[in-house]
């Protein structure tokens, strides 16, 4: 489904990603962990070219994301949903208008069609009753669920999540994770960067550990958490005490 091959990214002279290889199969949830600054966000942002890769290739369903330009890239991005740590809802538009905008402008759906789809997606994340609210009237957890609905409404083939719960108060994290679990059950292909190790154990098919711009170790959550092979992963896990004890 999503294939990352020998991806490299330099910011000026500093190399942030050093030949990353990673693939996500259809319906799979791949969970990425790693210390701050290891390049997780950069890798994710290269997948939809918010960040331009220095070299390497990204393929979605065997189509080259890295070779698209202009309109073709905009079309490609419709197939790649992205959820940000900071939500980034449009503050001047209602919740409904947030979820409709790209459907109408980029996907060229008719307004009634876009509205129906938006309501369906808001229902899905449990926020249909907030359709007419402004983003500023919602809690962080609600805003993030609207952001998820906004991405889902475009019928993406894969969803990228960059620390979707890191900006939330602890009591609101659960509502967002619940939506993500539900998505996984429905067979959505997901690439998730997060520190919610509990969630990784429960929902991830594969966990990838990144450090210093390389994939150090990857495997099923039981192996990564229960039987880490590399020294760096063991050091990383021991720094997050509570979850590693289990």
């Amino acid at each position, binding site marked *: 489904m999503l294939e990352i091959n020998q991806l490299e990214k330099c910011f000026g002279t500093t190399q942030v990603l050093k030949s990353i290889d990673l693939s996500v199969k259809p319906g799979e949830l791949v969970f990425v962990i790693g210390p701050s600054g290891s390049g997780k966000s950069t890798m994710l942002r290269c997948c939809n070219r918010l960040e331009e890769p220095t070299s390497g290739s990204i393929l979605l369903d065997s189509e080259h994301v890295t070779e698209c330009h202009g309109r073709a890239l905009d079309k490609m991005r419709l197939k790649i*949903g992205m959820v940000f740590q900071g939500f980034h809802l449009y503050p001047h538009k209602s919740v409904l208008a947030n979820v409709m905008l*790209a459907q109408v*402008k980029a996907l060229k759906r008719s307004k009634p069609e876009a509205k129906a789809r938006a309501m369906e997606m808001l229902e899905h994340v449990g926020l249909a009753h907030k359709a007419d609210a402004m983003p500023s009237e919602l809690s962080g957890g609600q805003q993030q669920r609207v952001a998820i609905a*906004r991405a889902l409404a475009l019928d993406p083939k894969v969803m990228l999540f960059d620390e979707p719960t890191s900006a939330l108060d602890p009591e609101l994290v659960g509502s967002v994770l619940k939506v993500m679990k539900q998505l996984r059950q429905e067979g959505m292909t997901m690439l998730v960067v997060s520190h919610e190790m509990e969630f990784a154990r429960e929902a991830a098919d594969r966990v990838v550990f990144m450090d210093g711009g390389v994939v150090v170790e990857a495997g099923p959550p039981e192996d990564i958490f229960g039987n880490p092979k590399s020294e760096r992963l063991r050091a990383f896990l021991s720094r997050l005490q509570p979850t590693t004890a289990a």
Partner: protein
Amino acid sequence: MSFLDTFFDGAVMAKYLPDLLAALVTTLWLSAAIVIAGLALGLVLACLRTLGRWYLTLPIVAFADISRALPPLVVILVFYFGLPGLGIRLSGPMVLFIVLGGVLAAFAEEIFWAGLTSVPKGQWEAGRATGLSFMQTLFDIALPQAIRLGIPSLVNRALAITKMTALGSVIGVKEILSVSSSAQSFSGSATPLTMAALAYLAIFLPVVIFARLLEKRYT
């Protein structure tokens, strides 16, 4: 002579009312033209600046800085009395429109630009990540937020500049100030100037009140 006779002489008022009404209309449509053209040009320039091309940014910034630095009266005099020497002859209202419209465009460009740069990067990323083009993201996401931020300053600036239509009196434009001051010298009464003040209030006071309401709403 009493206060009333000096400033509110009924006979003088009746005599010059038609002239002053005509002048009020002139000021009104000149102001409207200046505001529309100035804001539109300022918006276009700010949008062009977002493209980040030096060959666009450089002349835009130069235009904005020079237009904001020069006193409008100087430019008006140069255009009206200097350009004919080059064979370019513009009418008084045209000079007023071009110069004041240009000055407003310069200020508006800076206000729109300040608004655009204060829209968080994440807004652009959210737009582009959902498949919107640069232009769609600019028009549907960034600009509405920038305009909202800029409204109070835009209204104040538009007010300050449209009031400068009074400068038309030095180049023979029959706007409120020039008509009333010539009526004042003909009649020897200050009443036409009172009428001028009332005419300006009639035009600009509603705008000021409207601006206050807008400001309340958006800040």
